[in-house]
């Protein structure tokens, strides 16, 4: 591996199934409404991610998590089971939590996608992230970005959730380290932080 190139950048630059538009000759645009996105052919796509419009070329089979991580380089979203059970890949689609492994990138066009990176305010942590740090709401950390996004989605629906609402809201996110008690406490704290304008 070339010196000065991170492992992640190296992995991204070889053999990824998705490419940012800048790196690929523009594929024929498939207009919505009549079209077949053919297997193996790349389709140009504009995704609205964390408030920015991002151009990306994907194959029809590309899932949203692959597009986010390998195409856009937003690796905060984690692939876990890739079968809709663990919740590590949770992102917000139009403000509601969804599994990024259960959705094609093509389907996300026109929706507002929010990843854990989108909760940052510059270099400052968002309220939910801050609360997770304060409450030590993780051990290995792999599930954390998914847990954070599930809490973010919950708080956008219920600004001051009860413990039962928190448990329900996080039911789709597994933590194999068993940090649930701290995660629930962090969710409660995040509601307070958001409520006080943090």
């Amino acid at each position: 591996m070339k010196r000065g190139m991170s492992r992640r950048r190296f992995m991204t630059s070889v053999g990824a199934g998705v490419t940012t538009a800048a790196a690929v000759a523009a594929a024929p645009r498939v207009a919505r409404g009549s079209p077949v996105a053919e297997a193996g052919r790349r389709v140009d796509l504009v995704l609205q991610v964390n408030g920015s419009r991002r151009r990306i070329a994907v194959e029809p089979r590309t899932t949203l998590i692959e597009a986010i991580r390998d195409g856009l380089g937003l690796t905060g979203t984690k692939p876990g089971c890739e079968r809709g059970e663990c919740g590590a890949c949770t992102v917000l689609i139009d403000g509601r939590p969804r599994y990024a492994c259960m959705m094609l990138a093509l389907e996300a066009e026109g929706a507002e996608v929010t990843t854990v990176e989108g909760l940052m305010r510059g270099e400052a942590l968002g309220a939910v992230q801050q609360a997770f740090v304060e409450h030590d709401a993780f051990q290995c950390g792999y599930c954390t970005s998914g847990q954070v996004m599930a809490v973010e989605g919950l708080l956008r629906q219920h600004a001051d959730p009860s413990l039962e609402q928190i448990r329900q809201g996080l039911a789709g996110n597994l933590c194999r380290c068993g940090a649930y008690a701290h995660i629930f406490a962090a969710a409660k704290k995040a509601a307070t932080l958001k409520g006080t304008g943090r």
Partner: protein
Amino acid sequence: MRTAISRLSLVEPRSLRHALRLMRDEAGLVPLAGCTDLYVALNDGALRATRFLNLWPIEELRVIEPRGPVLFIGALATYSSLIRSADVRRRLPMLVSAAREVGGRQVQNRGTLGGNIANGSPAGDTLPVLAAAEATVVLGSATGTRRVPFTAFYKGYRTTVMRADELILGIEVPEVEGRQWFCKVGTRGAQAISKVVMAAVRAPHPRVALGSVAPTVVRVPKTEAALTGGASVDEARTILMSEIAPIDDIRSTAAYRRHVAGVLLGRFWEQTAAGRPVY
């Protein structure tokens, strides 16, 4: 990145009519909506299909509304939208209970009622509700619409009466008289697929439907007849345990399922007795 999903073409219909024409014109085209079952199969390499029809943007299949005497629920209604719907809450609270037990929030925001029906798993959480509510499945094709009683929809394990050119448009639920009851038993509260799932209605002729105890979701007419005829719940439980045909599989054993089905029948009867608050 996994590569099991190496070949996938996605067809985007312009409208429902267009989607139905595409289903007529192309054999092997597989409809796709919330993907919460389909992507599991694709990732496992268990699905041979390569061409998919994206139904998700068809808004008219998302409708939930009273239509004359029935409540119409579009095939693309998500579990979250069932939970939020005032009409579903009022008329079919056991469907709200079932929707809350599906996966977690992320799956509830994506998975659809039509998908649960089309997937046809005997463990589908909403399916006993539809059987107990005596719902009707509305099927559409390029040549027209037809209605099939939900209890006649499945022919066997994951096989249905649908023709290859048809799509599920939605379901129609008549007024359900009596107290509704639902319970799912799984390994854990969320995310788990059921070991036994039951929906039931306490009425002069009680209705009882179960999942995960036979190749399809089933009603149990002998058990219902016993309850209607005034048999004790213990007698009905004995009948139920011989009426169902559970199997041993990765999630549970036949013996456990038979026992739990009997326990659930007892709870249904106790919790819906006159004078008890509606849960």
